[in-house]
Each structure stands twice: as structure tokens, then as C-alpha cells.
């Protein structure tokens, strides 16, 4: 069933699927031809290129069947919780209750891309006065207004405060449509004052890289994230409000033991993803393309509405990546420019474009790096979750985020940065500049691009920048 790595079009995948099925490919219930999603309206798939492994097939099918899974959960009597904005903390709590399914309404961001605007979610948002001056997450407002993309949640929870104004403003409009929201505050993370107790946050571990044989061992220092005890306690208190709301919804206690189990399972997913990122980003040849890695990273926020299956999907991808590395197989050429990618793109096609221009992704920061780090298991669970929430890159200064990006660049051997500005997102004006400034200070080439949900008309310009970046990287190598 294994073929040398290559990227397939949708039509090619359907042909391959037929061959695999004939050869006895075993798939989960949501498996099948990728083409069926196109026939159901996911038109963008016909313009994407996909990895040819069965693991990637499973990943895509898992992603594209989430809507069905959510409606099935509702039919099965599960309570559905929309966990908004915090990208990785509240879902862990919600999933700790067996009666509850958590999902990520913000994920509607990609629907206009995947459906090439046929979904009309952006048009609906426009009609509600939330136009293109807002970030693509405005599609979420359209989704709540049309009630077609996911079941109406039994409970909506959204973080606010040190988050992003676009999201907060749009979520407020969602509430105005008659969907009450439990707002919880995430304060702007700051350094402890001299007289305050400092608490270490997850993601602090320095890493040793290099084999010690061919490449010397060296330490990559990650910026030490800390917060004052008072902020951790405040967030802890906010999470207790959420615990109470979840208990009301489920009609049972959400005990520390249940939370500890939930954290352990979340960590298992996070470890699998961390290893997948390490294997893919450090391999000489890319064992998986950047698009599949982007999707895999997104799963970690909310497990794509099936926590156990999410782990299996990630494990299969990891096994495939390892197999390819061992066989010295991979995509693209050995001299592909190694690019660190900052911020998710609204149009998935741009990830293919980078590779077509001679680059590959070796490191990412999609604005939820705190969800990639393990939640401490040695501490009381609510304390751990509070610390994890405060490590959110959006909650802290942009220079902390830049620090981690530069550390990961060193870890993964990236040679340049693409800062993908999110159209309309007000935080990009300042964050992108800080990241670019810090990177240039260390001598890395940086480009900024802006990618709308359907970027076809801008493809030549975006490709021009990406190609120029690749040329610059290669010219620097030869010096």
C-alpha cells in the first residue's frame, strides 16, 4: 500500500483510493474517497495537492467529517459545548466529561476557503455588518446565523481580555443573535514584579539538539515564560467558573480525578503531535507536506470532536513520517528552502504554493503554541490548566512569541520566516512587526504576506514573494 511519497490531486487520490480499497485498505467509519467531500461542496479540494499516504487520507477524512460527527453526537444525546478562542484549555476540561463533546466554532474560519465561498458564510457576515475589515473568523458569525454548519451548542464558552479584538467583537455579535456566552477573562500575561511570586509556565524546557556524532550537541534556549502567582490564581478562578458551568450542563461533578485523566489524554495527543513536528521539521527530506502538518496541528485544539480518534490519526501520521525518514524518502528536494511559518493561512492552497516555489515548512507558530506543550501532570489539574492557559502566545507580549519562534527556528534548522498576516486582524499590525524585527536582528530574512480565504487572484504576487524568499535563502547558503 505504500508508494514513494508524492502529492496527488483529488482525482489522482480517488484513483489511488480505488486501488487501495481493492488491496484491502482498512478505514474507519468516516473513511472513503476524498472526492465525496468535493461532491458535497468542498470545492477547494480540487485545487489542493495531498500527500499520497493512507495516513494522510485518514487525516483528511477525519477533518472533513467533523460536521457529521457533531450532528451524530447531538443525535446520541451528548451535550455540545462550543469552546471559543482559548485554543486548547477549555476543550481539555469539557472533554473530561463523558457526556460532553467540545468543538471549535472558530474553525468556521476555513469553511469559506474549503467551499470556495459557496457556503455564503462571509456574505451573511457582510449582511450583519461584519465585513472584510474583520478577520476571516467572521465566517463563524455566518455559521451561527445560518445554523447549518454545526449543531447549535448547549453551551458557549469564550475567553476574552488578552485575546483578539476581531474575535471578541464577532463573538459579542454571536451572543446578540441569541446564543448566550460564558465569557472568561484571560489577563495580559506580564512578568512578575520584584515582590511577587513567579510561577513557571509550560513550554520552558530548553532542548538539546544534534546527535553528538555528526552534528555537535547544542542547547536551544527557549524563552522562560513566567507569570505572577496572582495571575495564575485569577485564571484558576475563571476556570472554576467554567468547571461549574460544565457540571451544570452535564448534571454531574467534574472532579479533579476526571480532569487529571482528561489532561493525561490531551498530553498523549500533544506528545504525538510534538514528535510528528520534530520528525517532519528536522528531516532532510520532508516526510510530509506542510498542508498535512497544518491540519494535524489544528486537530490539537479540540481533537476534531473525537479525542480518541484524534490520537490514532496522529499516531498513524507519525508512523508514516518515521517510516519515510528511515527509508530516506520524502517530498521536494534536499535543497528546499527551510521556512518557518507564522500564523495560519485562510487559504490552504498557499501551503502548496510555498512548496511549488521551492520551499518547505520547518517550524510553525499558528498562534496556539501553548496547546503544543504538555500540561503539567504533577500539579493539581486546575492549577496546571491555568498555567497552560496563561502560556497562550496571544496573551503575552509579542516579544515572548518572537522568542519562541526564534528558538524553534534554531531547533528545526529553519532559514527564513514567512509572517502570514491575517487579513483584517488588528493584532497583526503590532505582532508581525515585533516578530519581523526580532528575526531581522538575528539576520533571518523575513517576508510578510496576506492571504484571504480564496487567494487565487493574489497567487502571482504571493508566489513572487515566496520565490524571492527561496532565492534569497539559497543565495545565502552559497556565501
Amino acid at each position: 500500500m505504500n508508494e514513494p511519497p508524492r502529492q496527488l490531486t483529488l482525482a489522482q487520490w480517488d484513483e489511488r483510493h480505488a486501488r487501495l480499497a481493492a488491496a484491502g485498505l482498512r478505514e474507519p467509519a468516516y473513511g472513503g474517497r476524498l472526492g465525496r467531500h468535493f461532491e458535497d461542496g468542498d470545492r477547494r479540494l480540487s485545487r489542493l495537492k495531498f500527500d499520497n499516504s493512507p495516513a494522510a487520507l485518514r487525516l483528511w477524512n477525519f477533518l472533513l467529517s467533523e460536521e457529521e460527527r457533531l450532528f451524530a453526537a447531538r443525535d446520541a444525546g451528548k451535550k455540545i459545548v462550543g469552546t471559543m478562542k482559548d485554543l486548547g484549555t477549555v476543550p481539555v476540561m469539557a472533554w473530561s466529561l463523558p457526556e460532553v463533546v467540545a468543538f471549535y466554532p472558530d474553525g468556521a474560519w476555513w469553511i469559506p476557503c474549503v467551499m470556495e465561498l459557496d457556503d455564503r458564510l462571509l456574505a451573511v457576515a457582510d449582511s450583519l455588518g461584519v465585513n472584510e475589515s474583520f478577520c476571516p473568523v467572521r465566517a463563524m458569525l455566518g455559521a451561527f446565523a445560518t445554523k447549518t454548519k454545526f449543531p447549535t451548542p448547549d453551551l458557549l464558552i469564550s475567553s476574552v481580555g488578552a485575546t483578539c479584538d476581531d474575535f471578541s467583537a464577532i463573538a459579542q455579535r454571536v451572543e446578540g443573535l441569541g446564543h448566550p456566552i460564558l465569557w472568561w477573562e484571560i489577563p495580559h500575561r506580564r512578568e512578575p514584579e520584584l515582590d511577587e511570586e513567579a510561577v513557571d509556565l509550560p513550554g520552558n524546557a530548553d532542548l538539546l539538539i544534534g546527535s553528538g556524532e555528526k552534528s555537535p550537541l547544542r542547547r536551544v534556549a527557549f524563552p522562560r515564560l513566567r507569570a505572577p502567582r496572582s495571575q495564575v490564581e485569577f485564571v484558576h478562578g475563571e476556570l472554576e467558573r467554567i468547571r461549574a458551568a460544565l457540571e451544570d450542563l452535564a448534571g454531574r461533578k467534574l472532579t479533579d480525578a476526571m480532569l487529571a485523566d482528561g489532561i493525561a489524554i490531551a498530553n498523549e495527543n500533544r506528545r504525538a503531535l510534538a514528535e510528528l513536528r520534530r520528525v517532519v521539521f528536522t528531516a532532510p527530506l520532508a516526510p510530509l507536506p506542510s498542508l498535512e502538518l497544518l491540519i494535524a496541528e489544528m486537530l490539537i485544539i479540540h481533537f476534531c470532536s473525537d479525542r480518541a480518534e484524534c490520537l490514532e490519526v496522529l499516531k498513524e501520521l507519525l508512523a508514516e513520517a518515521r517510516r519515510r525518514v528511515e527509508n530516506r524518502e520524502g517530498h521536494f528536494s534536499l535543497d528546499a528552502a527551510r521556512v518557518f511559518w507564522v500564523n495560519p493561512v485562510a487559504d490552504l492552497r498557499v501551503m502548496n504554493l510555498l512548496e511549488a516555489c521551492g520551499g518547505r515548512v520547518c517550524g510553525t507558530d499558528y498562534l496556539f503554541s501553548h496547546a503544543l506543550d504538555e500540561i503539567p501532570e504533577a500539579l493539581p489539574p486546575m492549577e496546571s490548566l491555568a498555567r497552560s492557559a496563561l502560556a497562550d502566545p496571544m496573551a503575552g507580549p509579542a516579544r515572548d512569541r518572537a522568542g519562541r519562534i526564534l528558538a524553534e527556528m534554531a531547533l528545526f534548522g529553519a532559514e527564513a520566516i514567512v509572517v502570514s498576516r491575517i487579513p483584517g486582524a488588528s493584532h497583526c499590525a503590532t505582532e508581525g512587526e515585533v516578530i519581523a524585527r526580532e528575526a531581522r536582528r538575528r539576520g533571518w530574512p523575513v517576508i510578510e504576506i496576506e492571504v484571504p480565504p480564496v487567494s487565487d487572484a493574489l497567487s502571482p504576487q504571493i508566489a513572487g514573494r515566496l520565490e524571492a524568499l527561496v532565492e534569497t535563502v539559497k543565495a545565502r547558503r552559497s556565501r
Partner: protein
Amino acid sequence: MIAVGIDAGSRAIKIVLLDGESREVVAAGQVDQGIEQERLAMDLLERLLAEAGLARESIKSVIATGYGRNLIGVADRTVTEITCHARGVRHQAPHARTIIEIGGQDSKLIRLDARGAVQDFAMNDRCAAGTGRFLEVVAGRLGDGLNGLGKLAARAGEAATISSMCVVFAETEIIGLLAAGTPPESIAAGVQATIASRVCAMAGRRVDEPVVFTGGVALIPGMREALSTRLARPVETVPDPRMTGALGAALIAMK
């Protein structure tokens, strides 16, 4: 043997023929961009070869650059404008550390290291307010050609403030300024200052000298001075700055 650089830009196709041994320009020319750009490029190439008395077989290599580079079938390879402008400027002004290129539809800022290699770059290809297109719109509104606009600006006592970030709104603003009796000279100077401001914004706070200005807009009187004022640094131009990208492509083709 001849090395050919073709810069298929958004407004014009420029071609440079370079002698592979002497590195001298044998012929150079340009033609307005059109729908059939490959045919236009081939016609221009044939014309330049004929003028220089060269046969097609004398061509060793062809590099295409510019917005339409992927549509030039005769090219052996494509290279982006960033790399080509950097290479062209390195040939014409080896000491340059910063390149500002303003073309018809986009503008670029390129930082070079001490050896003339690209360190980093920024581009504006979405907003016309930092491009030659803005000047064209204004020249049309003031009823003067592009060169006339530059001469007009040179006579201005004070530059008018044009604040809109969008060319469309800026045009409305200009109508308002004309209605309010603002002299066209001030408006022209204000537009040049606005373009300079938009372009310099790409540089952030770091601009290494010497600064070299290329692209078709570098030929317009007053623009170099406007950039120099905005950057508070001297800005140089190169001979025939329209051809720098094509020259760079030809130099790369020589390799």
C-alpha cells in the same frame, strides 16, 4: 555568446542583451505590455538581435523575470525581480546597500549585504498608493503627463497633504484640493511625498546607505528628491533604471 535578460513587468517588457565575455550591453529595449506577452517579448528580442546584427544561435541563455516571467516560453529559467534587481544594481552600483524599486504596479525595498547579496526584502504589490500607478492617476487628473507632473512638482512652494491610504480615495481628495484652489504644483509635490512615504514605510527604521533607486518611476523628475527627503538620506539612481531588472536577469543568464 549572448546572455539575454527579459523583464516582463506589469507595464512594459524590457530586454537586455549582454556580451558573455565583455559583460557589455549589446542591445536593450522595451515595449509596452499587452495580452500576448510572449509574442511581444519575442518580437522585441528579434528586433534587438537584428539591430545588433546577431543571430538567434548566438544566444547562450535566457532568464525571464518580472510579473509575467512564467509566460515567457523562450526562457531557460525564471528568477524573481528581487534577485534580478539586486544583481543589476550590484553591477551598476556595487556599493549599494539598499535598493528602492518603484514600478508601475508595485514597489520593493531590498537590503543587500556588503557583498551585494540580498539579505532581506519587502514588497508592496497590493496598494497602488506606493507605486507609479498613483502618479499616472494623478497625472491624468491634473491633465499632464508623467514627466509634466514631475516638472510641476519641482515648481511647488509647499507640498499639499494627501492623507488617504487608497489611490481611489486620494483621487477624491485631489478633486477636493483642486476645488479648494490648491495649486496643481502643490498637489503634484504632495503625491510624490505620499508615494515616498508609503515606500519608505517598508523600510521600517533601518535603512543602510548608500540607497539606490531603480524602476521606471526613478525617471520621473522629483521622485528621487522626494525619497531622499523622506528618508533623510541621499538617494542615488542608476543609468536607465527601467532596465535594471532585465540587466540583472542577463547577468544571471551569463553564469
